[in-house]
C-alpha cells in the first residue's frame, strides 16, 4: 500500500513537472520545464528514459513556446519582440535569422553555337549573395570571340570582316533553389566593323539577350555549370541577328 502511494505521488509529480511546451520551427514539440531565457537561447529541463536532463535551444530554431505557472523563471526584460497571448509566446524569428552575405567570384568559359556564328565567351561574375534576397546583380566582365558562318548571308559581298564590339547591360541572377539560379542578360552592344570592300570602318549597335540556368555550389569553391539561350539583334551590315545556345562551365572561388 505504502509503495503504491509513493509510486502514485512520483507519477503525479512527473506528470505535473513537464508543464511547458516548446515548438521548434521544424515542427518538433518538446514537453519540458523552461528554466531560463536570455536574449538568444532558451534553456529547459526535459525527461528522457527516466532521466531529467537539461538542454537548450537557440531562438533561431524556435517557433513558439508556452509557459505554465511562472516559477523561478528569469526573463530578459530587454527582449521586447515577443508577444504574449495567454502564456503562449510566439517568437519573431526574423530577428534571430541573421542576414548572411558572401562575395562570390565566378570565372566561366562558354562555347556558343548560334544559327549564324559559333565561338566562345569567357566571363567573370562578381556579386554579393544575400540570404534575404533572391535577386542579385553581378559585375560582369566578358571577352567573346566568334566566327561567322559565311553561308548565312550569301548576298553580302565580302571576303573578310573584322568586327569588334563592347556591351554594357544587366545580367541578374535569380535564386530558384540553394544551388540553382536563373541567369538573365540584357546588354546594349556598340561596335565597329570593317569589310575588305570598305575603306573606313563602320559602327553598329544592337542588343543581346540571354536566358539560362546556372548551377552554383553553395560551398566556398566549386564547379559552376550553366545552359542558356541567347539572341542578338545588330545593325551590322554583316552580322544582323543571331540565335543560339551556350553551355557554361567554370569555377567559383
Amino acid at each position, binding site marked *: 500500500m505504502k509503495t503504491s502511494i509513493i509510486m502514485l505521488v512520483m507519477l503525479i509529480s512527473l506528470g505535473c513537472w513537464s508543464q511547458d511546451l516548446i515548438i521548434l520551427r521544424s515542427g518538433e514539440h518538446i514537453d519540458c520545464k523552461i528554466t*531560463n531565457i*536570455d536574449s538568444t*537561447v532558451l*534553456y529547459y*529541463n526535459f525527461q*528522457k528514459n527516466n*532521466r*531529467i*536532463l*537539461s*538542454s*537548450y535551444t537557440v531562438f533561431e530554431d524556435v517557433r513558439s513556446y508556452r509557459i505554465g505557472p511562472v516559477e523561478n523563471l*528569469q526573463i530578459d526584460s530587454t527582449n521586447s519582440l515577443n508577444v504574449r497571448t495567454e502564456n503562449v509566446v510566439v517568437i519573431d524569428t526574423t530577428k534571430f535569422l541573421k542576414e548572411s552575405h558572401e562575395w562570390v567570384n565566378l570565372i566561366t568559359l562558354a562555347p556558343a553555337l548560334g544559327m549564324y556564328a559559333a565561338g566562345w565567351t569567357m566571363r567573370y561574375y562578381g556579386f554579393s549573395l544575400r540570404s534575404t534576397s533572391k535577386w542579385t546583380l553581378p559585375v560582369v566582365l566578358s571577352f567573346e570571340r566568334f566566327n561567322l558562318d559565311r553561308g548565312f548571308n550569301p548576298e553580302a559581298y565580302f571576303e573578310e570582316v573584322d568586327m569588334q564590339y563592347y556591351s554594357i547591360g544587366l545580367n541578374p541572377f535569380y535564386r530558384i533553389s540553394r*544551388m540553382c539560379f536563373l541567369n538573365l542578360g540584357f546588354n546594349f552592344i556598340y561596335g565597329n566593323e570593317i569589310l575588305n570592300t570598305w575603306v573606313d570602318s563602320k559602327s553598329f549597335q544592337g542588343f543581346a539577350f540571354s536566358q539560362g540556368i546556372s548551377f552554383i*555550389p*553553395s*560551398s*566556398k*569553391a*566549386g*564547379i559552376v555549370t550553366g545552359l542558356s539561350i541567347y539572341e542578338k539583334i545588330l545593325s551590322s551590315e554583316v552580322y544582323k541577328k543571331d540565335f543560339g545556345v551556350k553551355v557554361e562551365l567554370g*569555377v567559383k572561388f
Partner: protein
Amino acid sequence: MRKLILLSPLLLLISCVANQRIFYPTSDLMAPYTVKPVPARVEIRILTDNRLNIEENAILFNNPRQIDLEGKLTCINSEMHYKKDSVVNQVTMMMVEHFNKARLFELSVYNKSEHCKYYLAGTLNSFYGEQEFSHGALIGSQFGLIGALATAGIKTPGKIVIDISDLKLFRKDGTLVKDFGSFYKEYDEEFRADGYCWCIFMNTNEMLKDFNTHLIEKIRADMEGVNL
C-alpha cells in the same frame, strides 16, 4: 633490429587506425576583459566515462568508422580512431581550454593542481556521432582537385549527441558548492560530408564547441548568487 623490422607493419597499422583528435580552435572564443569570471580557481577533473552503460553508444566501441546501420551506410565516430589518449581525457582538456578562453572561472586547470581550492567533476554519458555516408563525396574524391571542388559543399543528415551529467562544483574538502545537474544536446541536422567517413569526427568536434559554449553560459548563470 630484426624485431623492429618485424614490428614496423604493426606500428604503421596502429598509426593509421588511431588518428583522430578531439580538438577545435579556441582563438575566436576569447571573452572580453569586461566579462567577470567566477572568482575561483577550479580543477576540471577528468570526466567519468559512463558511455558504455548507454545502449546507443555500444556501436562506437566495436565497429569501424563506416558501418551498415539499418540498411544505410553510416559514418560513426568509432572509438578505435581516437588517439591513445581517452575520449574523456580529451573532452576534459578541451573544456579546460574553452573555460579559460571564455573566462568562466578565474582559472581552470586540467585534472589536479595544488593551486586550486575547488574542483568540478562530472560524468560523460554520450559523445556520439552518426552521419549518412556520401557516395557523391567518394566519387568526387576520385577526381582530384576538380572533384574535390565539385563536392566540397555536400552535406548529409546526421545526429550528434553530447551528454554530461552529475556536474558538480566541490571545495577541496569535498563540500558541495553547486550541483549543475546534467547538460544534454542532440544535434539533428545536415553535416558536411567526405568520402572516407573522417567528417563525422570533425563534425562532432564542432558540435562539442557549441555544446561547451552553452554549458559555460549555464554554469555562469547558475553560479550567480552562489557564495564561495
